């Protein structure tokens, strides 16, 4: 206690947690204390009122729907009877759903790895350019990320059209045969990943570019003096400095990609023969289109455990990052 008082007394203007000047602890009079208490009470009331819309919004339209989803998932199709975990076991026993789980994992992991790789390369390439030209190139490279995916996927759909495919026309120029982009399971899986990579790579690029710019030049100079090669600089300077940002963006993108809906819905709508369904599109088909709300709710709840794990790691990364920045 005395140490703390001494520390406060040593500072020129002690500031309390609320931003108000703290009371000098050396001479606490009764009147002063009660007034301060009143202010503190008033402050917290105001603060609570200011956050109330946020609390209502999150409580009413995020937390409550989530709990409601758990409840819904335990009802029968006509929502008249409580069936416990039957929906979940039923889904797990269905081959279509097993494929959905597998496809979601393959889709998310491969798309995120490719996006991270392309983003990393592009960030380095942009960083190497003279700063004058950087802006224009960066602007062009950001275009896929700026167009709403539900809109740009329409363009891809048209590019992959079975009879008029402009991509196949280009491939024919190289002597490659026509590819059934959306008609064959393997190619359709590749196509949804390709479109997702096209859309998401620029996000990684700007995040990594920002991180690269924050690496102090002295580190590279020191490495150059020590005779480090390009790969050594990458391995021993760039990667350690960017490790946290890389893990945050990868985990964040895993969440978003895993829960993707737009691209698969427009490009293949789960086809051919349900081979490209991911959780979200399958939940939409079961819950909204076929009208089995409880089953649809259970499909999307299957995403939750994995997302929760990712979210915990993202949060941990961000906290560590802000501690590093603070230190």
């Amino acid at each position: 206690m005395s140490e703390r008082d001494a520390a406060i007394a040593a500072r020129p203007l002690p500031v309390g947690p609320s931003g108000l000047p703290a009371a000098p602890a050396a001479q606490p009079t009764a009147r002063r204390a009660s007034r301060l208490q009143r202010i503190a009470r008033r402050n917290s009331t105001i603060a609570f009122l200011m956050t109330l819309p946020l609390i209502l919004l999150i409580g009413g339209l995020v937390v409550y729907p989530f709990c409601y989803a758990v409840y819904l998932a335990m009802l029968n199709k006509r929502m008249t009877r409580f069936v416990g975990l039957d929906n979940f076991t039923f889904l797990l026993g269905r081959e279509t759903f097993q494929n959905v789980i597998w496809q979601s994992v393959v889709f998310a992991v491969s798309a995120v790895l490719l996006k991270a790789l392309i983003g990393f390369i592009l960030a380095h390439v942009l960083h190497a350019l003279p700063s004058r030209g950087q802006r224009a190139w960066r602007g062009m490279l950001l275009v896929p990320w700026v167009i709403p995916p539900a809109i740009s996927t329409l363009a891809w759909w048209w590019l992959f059209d079975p009879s008029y495919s402009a991509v196949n026309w280009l491939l024919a120029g190289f002597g490659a045969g026509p590819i059934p982009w959306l008609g064959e399971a393997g190619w359709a899986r590749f196509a949804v990943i390709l479109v997702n990579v096209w859309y998401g790579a620029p996000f990684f690029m700007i995040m990594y570019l920002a991180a690269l710019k924050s690496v102090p030049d002295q580190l590279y100079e020191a490495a150059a003096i020590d005779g480090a090669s390009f790969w050594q600089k990458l391995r021993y300077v760039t990667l350690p400095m960017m490790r946290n940002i890389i893990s945050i963006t990868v985990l964040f993108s895993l969440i978003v990609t895993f829960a993707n809906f737009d691209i698969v819905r427009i490009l293949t709508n789960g086809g051919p023969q349900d081979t490209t369904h991911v959780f979200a599109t399958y939940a939409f088909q079961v819950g909204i289109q076929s009208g089995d709300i409880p089953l649809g709710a259970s499909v999307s709840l299957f995403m939750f455990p994995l997302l929760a794990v990712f979210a915990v790691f993202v949060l941990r990364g961000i906290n560590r990052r802000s501690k590093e920045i603070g230190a």
Partner: protein
Amino acid sequence: MSATTAGAAPAPRRSGSLARERRWALIGAYVALAVFVVFFMLPPFHMLITSLKGSAEIADQTGNPWMVRSPTLENYRDLLTAGNYLTFFWNSVMVTACVVVISMVVSTLAAFALARMRFWGSQTLATGVFLTYLVPETLLFIPLFQIVGSLGLINNVWAMVLIYPTLTVPFCTWIMIGYFASIPKELDEAALIDGASHLQMLWKIFIPVALPGILAAMIFAFTVSWAAFIYPMAYLVSTDQMVLTVGIVSDLIRADTFQWGKIMAGALMAALPPLLVYAFLMDYYIAGLTAGATKG
């Protein structure tokens, strides 16, 4: 110091090889850039080309699909004069404007309280806000379907104004907490000494000082609500209530006839507002988005 003097003797040869190395690196960089720019720009470019073709030219399979022989604006004219396209556009504009305003009011107030006024549970709430941002909409659209239905708002475009803020507010609050927290406390103290209330402090000091952050949050809210897809897809049925993202698909594809020229023209015009916003305000947005990555 000693390193530079020691390296002085073989300097000319070494610097020559360094310059050559650097030149090759730069050439490699431009080649890689060109490859990716082509890959990234192909779909929008093809979109533009198709939108300028008449339906006869689109159906003709003999020519080069990447070129337009007799450019025409009839697709654009048809969309803007007949059909439902303008309704979709207007609905999108209205929903987006409302959502941006709502998000900014809610998140500015909350971020101010969370950044400056500690109260019971404020730390938990700040963490909770960030976790909410990580909850994808595809997890919640089915229970929300029931909730929106019980409010009688299925097939009503106003339901979007109610629901979209769940997508925008958490992240807007999160970036604004960061911006507000970086404002020096001396400014609040000066305002408090001058007898300013909390709302005056927010309005006269925090909002002007944190304007770049607020702009970044606004762009985020705009982008998200302009691009939202699963909620309108699930809750809007009739064409007079639809927004652009779902309207184009449902209105221009009748059974098996795809009016590709019009679809591409409509998609291009729908992509235009975000493209324009980013063309002018990209730097603010990127600064806001990457603030956590670069600070320090």
